[in-house]
């Protein structure tokens, strides 16, 4: 039962983040690129003021997989790094915490450019 609830929470919270973005796409003139920027910055901000952590505890991947979760990782990484290394951590923490995803995406992007052929749409 617990497992089911975990999945349900991830589904609902993750879905809710997407619905908010969808409403922004359809109802405002915001382009997708702007919306993503807003999401990342919101993730950093909400983590900074301590609102996001409880949401992550509650929904797990429902809160970490959307791009606000990217901001959450950055902010968390920065805070931990500052605790350990002082001001230097403010600069090293964000990229360190998100390096796995960014590096993988870059490498896969490069591989994709090597292996794919053009497909017409």
């Amino acid at each position: 039962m617990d497992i089911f609830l975990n999945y349900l929470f991830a589904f609902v919270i993750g879905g809710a983040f997407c619905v908010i973005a969808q409403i922004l796409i359809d109802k405002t003139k915001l382009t997708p690129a702007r919306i993503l920027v807003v999401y990342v910055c919101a993730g950093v901000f909400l983590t900074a003021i301590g609102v996001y952590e409880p949401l992550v505890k509650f929904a797990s991947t429902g809160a970490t997989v959307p791009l606000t979760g990217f901001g959450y990782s950055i902010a968390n990484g920065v805070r931990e790094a500052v605790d350990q290394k002082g001001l230097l951590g403010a600069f090293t923490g964000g990229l360190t915490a998100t390096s796995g995803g960014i590096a993988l995406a870059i490498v896969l992007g490069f591989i994709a450019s090597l292996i794919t052929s053009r497909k017409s749409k």
Partner: protein
Amino acid sequence: MNKEDYNKYISMRAKKSPILKNCCFAFLIGGFICTLGRVFLDAYIYFGIEQKDASSLASMTLIFIAFVLTCFGVFDNIAKIAGGGTLVPITGFANSIVSSAIDSKSEGYICGVGAKIFSIAGPVILYGITSGVLYGIIYYFCTFLR
């Protein structure tokens, strides 16, 4: 008719995006992707990986899936229906990088792929990292005040 009236007139008559339908699909597909992330997360923890690394790995797995779907040319077809449902999860980030790389291949690997790979994902990284650094600096000085 002046410009202002004309713009009012065209935005009034333009057919609106089917927002209810779009939101339903965004919710279902976005929710599904996050749940899938949870499945991977649980699996990695089950295999004895530490929570924090498992969380990174789960995201990376989703990035990999988005890469495969983009390479086979189906990601954009899913995104056409899902809208925010594929844009907001980390899959959208991965798709924007992979699709830029594929697209700029014809201009070569340096000036094409190399220069254009972040043409869409760039802003996310710029503002994400910058706001993180800003937060770190503020946090650092706050720790003195305590």
